[in-house]
């Protein structure tokens, strides 16, 4: 990890008698994870034999179309990111009891999935993490016959770069990462990410929140410096690290679950996602506080979050049915009303709250969106970011 010049073929040379996964499955902390691995056992050994390749090697559907639906659904989602009414409706109409687990960054999600034993039936990775999951054999190939509502998915999202043809993923919603602030604290009106980083140093007493995770923090910092957020240039990443370190003294919290605190008025200045911030803006407006979300003219991150079924899912039929429900315009409209992000399902516009559809912070101007950049993830880029992020966190 800390040697960038490490040859790529080391992986080939690595003795295969014991992969890290096997070691963890069977070793100590691991006797426990054996328990937890439960039914995931057989599918994980499939993956291992593939040596990290794709899990989909046959044309046979991953889940038989006529399989009965299970009685449970374990959903790992970002915190507060789906309408609880939809969980209830799912249980009421189809039976499976829904359990929700939360996480705060794609890094955290991938680590959980890769360690095995998490047993999630549905996860919500961002585009680049979907790609990583597919490459690592961590995603289950979808049986589209179980998802008839797939016809409602907007055409643009059937041709994504990370999963063309929706073999493994279905877009959940999309958004933008940028700065936001309370106008009673920040008197200026910054128009670029860089100006925001600079202003952090001016408002020393402002309560500042950053998002979690190395990919997320470096995406914003690299864009602010005018670099691509996918940069793999150690020099550029170093500059981004310096930028982050220079503002670290003014950062109060690093937490992706920032909606409740923002709604209480406890965040003055921060980095966030547009829909979450839109919810904060609405709540604060009731208290006559003005909160602004920056939609810069320069590149910043545009992301698409997706529904994916992990390879070891214990309730794959229920998971397919869940995705199908989320592609139903009525349920999708409820989602949009709840989390305040556009859902790429045809027919939602007529059913969702008009105020949300008309909100420029949520439905961002297409011309601006076209300038924004989407993340890709490579092991090399990730290693450079992880090490630099650790320095930022430990500083």
């Amino acid at each position, binding site marked *: 990890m800390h040697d960038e010049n490490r040859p790529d073929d080391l992986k080939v040379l690595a003795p295969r008698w014991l992969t890290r996964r096997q070691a963890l499955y069977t*070793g100590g902390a691991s006797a426990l994870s054996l328990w937890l691995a439960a039914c995931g056992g057989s599918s994980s050994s499939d993956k291992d034999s593939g040596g990290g390749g794709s899990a989909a090697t046959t044309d046979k559907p991953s889940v038989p179309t006529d399989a009965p639906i299970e009685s449970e659904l374990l959903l790992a989602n970002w915190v507060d990111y789906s309408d609880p009414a939809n969980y209830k409706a799912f249980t009421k109409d189809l039976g499976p009891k829904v359990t929700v687990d939360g996480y705060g960054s794609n890094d955290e999600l991938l680590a959980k999935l890769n360690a095995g034993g998490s047993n999630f039936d549905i996860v919500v990775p961002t585009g680049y993490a979907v790609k990583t999951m597919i490459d690592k054999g961590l995603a289950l190939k979808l049986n589209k016959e179980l998802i008839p509502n797939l016809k409602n998915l907007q055409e643009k999202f059937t041709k994504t770069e990370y999963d063309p043809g929706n073999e493994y993923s279905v877009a959940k919603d999309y958004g933008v990462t940028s700065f936001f602030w309370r106008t009673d604290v920040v008197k200026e009106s910054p128009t670029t990410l860089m100006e925001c980083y600079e202003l952090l140093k001016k408002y020393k007493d402002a309560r500042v929140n950053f998002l979690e995770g190395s990919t997320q923090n470096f995406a914003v910092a690299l864009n602010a410096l005018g670099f691509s957020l996918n940069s793999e240039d150690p020099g550029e990443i170093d500059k981004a690290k310096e930028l982050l370190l220079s503002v670290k003294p003014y950062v109060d919290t690093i937490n992706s679950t920032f909606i409740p605190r923002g709604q209480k008025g406890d965040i003055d200045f921060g980095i966030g996602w547009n829909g979450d911030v839109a919810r904060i803006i609405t709540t604060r407006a009731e208290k006559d506080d003005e909160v602004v979300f920056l939609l810069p003219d320069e590149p910043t991150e545009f992301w698409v979050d997706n529904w994916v079924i992990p390879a070891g899912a214990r309730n794959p039929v229920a998971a397919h049915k869940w995705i199908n429900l989320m592609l139903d315009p009525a349920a999708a409209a409820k989602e949009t009303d709840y989390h305040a992000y556009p859902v790429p399902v045809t027919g939602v516009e007529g059913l969702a709250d008009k105020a949300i559809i008309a909100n420029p912070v949520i439905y961002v101007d297409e011309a601006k969106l076209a300038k924004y950049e989407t993340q890709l993830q490579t092991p090399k880029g990730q290693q450079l970011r992880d090490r630099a992020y650790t320095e930022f966190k430990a500083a």
Partner: protein
Amino acid sequence: MTTAEAHSASAPAATASGRRVAGALLGVAGVVVAAALYTQIGSLGLGLAPSVALLFVSMPLFVGLGLVLARRGGADGGRGRYPLTLAGPSLAFYTAFFILPLAFLILFAFATPVGFGEVSYGFDLSNFDAALDGIYVDAFLRTLRFAAIGTLLTVIVGYPFAYWLARYAPAKRKTLLLALVIVPFWTSFLIRTSSFLIVFSDSFFLSRWLADLGLTDGRLDILYTNTAVQIGIVYNYLPLFVLPVYATLERMDWRLLDAATDLGATGWSAFRQITLRLTAPGLITGALLVFIPMMGEYIIPLVLGGGRVDLIGNVIGRSFLEQQDYAFGSALALLVMGALSVFIALYLYLSTRSEQEFGA
């Protein structure tokens, strides 16, 4: 077992220490064999239930090893007839959940990470090199500072209370008072820690009272700072300190103090020369009992530090749970364990000495 007995029969003249060494070596060899066995369970492709069954069937192997080890060591002392089987369950448990994970930790620490959680085994010192980098040493020193200040504050807050409880508290009320110390300890650790989010918030009365008293200028501004983490640490570990100290103070013969006063000692010197020295073992135990977990504290900085205060436990946790850098995390964990062992050795030395001086 049979091998071990044959071995001892062939070397009747071996000294006790020689046998112990042989026993220890045998134990190590056995653990290696068992570890190899464990790694194979997963690759047999038996599925979950048979794997778990095999795991637990292989446990007695460890128990057997432990027995061999213990017998080698104890046979000459004339005390070889202890019912060693009693140690079996804990031996099996610690082997499976402590010694084996530790072995894997060592294996990972010397491996080369190849990205996304995979490692290539070998003898690679670069993880240790990276872990000894300035920022991690700083994080370790910061943790050491938190733990040292935390322990000191715990002693300052906890010792007088334990003293009062043991000596002056009305006998009828003692049980109740002790319960008051223990009950919060039964509450979920996370809830206890999270409750401070409310206590420190601006809308709680504490913030307003302090502002009304003129101690703060409007905002308490303590949440998500080092201070909040430090308070949370002391609060959470206090019962762990009070209980062992109370136990030693409870056994104190207070007439010794009367005797000392009769012989002309002032209250302070009687306390210093008698009470403090007699309760030193409890005091040291209590202090170490809170210091060690404080060094590994992970949750409190996460909750009360707002993700901004990074202790060494958080660095290690993140390398496993977010960055999937098992090799680096293992190396760092081993270094921290090594450093902490020094404190434990110090504790053993100090407590044995004070026990020998005064008896228990």
